[in-house]
């Protein structure tokens, strides 16, 4: 019987290795749990359900007539998201062409600069961009628009340049072989190929930006977040609940629009 062939998924050595990795993961988890537990005031946590219930009871009934004061901030929020996205898309498109390996004028000099712009834009949250811009150009909707667009440039440019790098090069060859100029090669050979990505990414980013612009008011960069912060400051919880419901509905609608648009493109 001993020479019967028995198949196992892994060799004995790999098996040991896998179990050792599991062991490490569990040890790490327990260690972190211990640290968090040490840093937590368990007294407050025990109290949490009661406090949450208390806060909830203060939020109802929502003060519906406060909605009247929300329409304009809500409109601002939509504008911040939409204009910010448009600005970002306009700036991100050339950056994407400079960053893509197959369209950049210089892999050694231009591409790293474009990639740096993309990384720095992506690594700074729009709330932080807002904080910086409010100090530079003052509070208001404009700061919000620029904050949103700065954060979005990296996102849009990154996804776009990846799409450019994955195009079918023979279509580009075919257009170049007709004697077309570089700009014609771009508009005929490349652009139609990345158009679905371009449209999909733009709408997706717009949808994300609506969510992000609702909190920009917290740092004074305009939109419904201003009302949210003001209401929390004066502990007007019945207004806070109205604002949260308004934000929720806006986001649901924007997600629906974004899903419909992307579905119809692809």
């Amino acid at each position, binding site marked *: 019987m001993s020479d019967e062939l028995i198949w196992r998924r892994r060799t004995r050595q790999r098996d040991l290795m896998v179990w050792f990795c599991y062991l490490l993961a569990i040890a790490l988890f327990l260690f972190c749990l211990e640290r968090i537990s040490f840093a937590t005031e368990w007294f407050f946590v025990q109290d949490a359900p009661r406090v949450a219930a208390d806060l909830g009871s203060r939020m109802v009934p929502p003060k519906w007539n406060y909605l009247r004061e929300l329409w304009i901030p809500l409109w601002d929020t939509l504008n911040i998201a939409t204009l910010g996205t448009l600005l970002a898309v306009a700036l991100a498109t050339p950056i994407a062409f400079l960053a893509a390996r197959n369209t950049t004028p210089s892999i050694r000099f231009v591409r790293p600069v474009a990639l740096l712009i993309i990384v720095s834009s992506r690594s700074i949250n729009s709330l932080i961009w807002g904080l910086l811009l409010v100090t530079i150009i003052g509070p208001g909707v404009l700061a919000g628009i620029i904050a949103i667009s700065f954060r979005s440039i990296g996102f849009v440019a990154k996804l776009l340049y990846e799409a450019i790098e994955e195009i079918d090069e023979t*279509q580009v060859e075919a257009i170049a072989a007709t004697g077309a100029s570089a700009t014609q090669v771009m508009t005929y050979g490349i652009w139609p190929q990345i158009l679905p990505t371009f449209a999909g990414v733009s709408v997706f980013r717009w949808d994300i930006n609506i969510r992000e612009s609702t909190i920009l008011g917290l740092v004074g960069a305009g939109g419904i977040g201003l009302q949210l912060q003001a209401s929390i400051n004066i502990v007007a919880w019945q207004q806070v609940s109205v604002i949260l419901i308004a934000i929720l509905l806006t986001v649901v609608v924007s997600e629906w629009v974004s899903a419909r648009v992307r579905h119809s493109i692809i």
Partner: protein
Amino acid sequence: MLKLENLSKQYDKGDEALKEISLEVPAGQIVALIGPSGAGKSTLIRCINRLVEPTTGTVVLDELNITSLKGRALRLARRQMAMIFQEYALIERLTVMENVLSGQLGYVGFLHSFFRRFPTEIVNEAYEILGRVDLQEHLYKRADELSGGQRQRVGIARAMLQRPRLLLVDEPTASLDPRTSRQIMRLLSEICQERDLTALVNIHDVALAQVFVDRIIGLKNGEIVFDGKSDELDDDTLTHIYGKEDWATLRQTGADDSAGSIRGGSISESSDEHMRGLS
């Protein structure tokens, strides 16, 4: 008409794709380039219109030294050399008409091409050519809605609208079924005759090449190992180009296939029924 002198191409990785190729093609001749994968056929064709930059050597088209051209002059020279591709290389998301009109990109300015405002006589010519390749009903379809044979005919129409003097054809039939392959090769050779074009055709299918071309050039490891009339190509030469194989049997299959394709005309499979004018 076309003259290559000591044309060589060495890729960055070091492999030598072409070794000192010299050949001359008189006007109006259809030449097939045969040879195993990696023999340098595609590189050779792309060195002629400089989609691939040759390392040394010259390409001369009607006294014009193409290898020395730059920028705008190169683009003007490219207008005379239309290319047809294996995977059709159509712009998939544009319509059939837009694809055909893109053959004119070397003639019209950026803004005109961007807004699709091509001169009326060009649009009329495009209609005419689409009629010639029997695609007029599909004018507004997107290229990715067409069958393989139809797509290749769009590719041919695009090349024709370029008003070339030379056709560079890279494996026109490699993605097509045997019957459509024949129809495409027949269409290509008819068009070359009608318009008095010279053509260089890369092709895998030796039997098919022998039916439709005047001259065959065999490439192996970047060198020309055969150059002669189609009927001069014998089994020994094929063995020299491709390696040992029972060529007689293969030819037999090829002959059966051609007989089959004639009968196939009445059986008529699937999407290529519109090919009335061609089959």
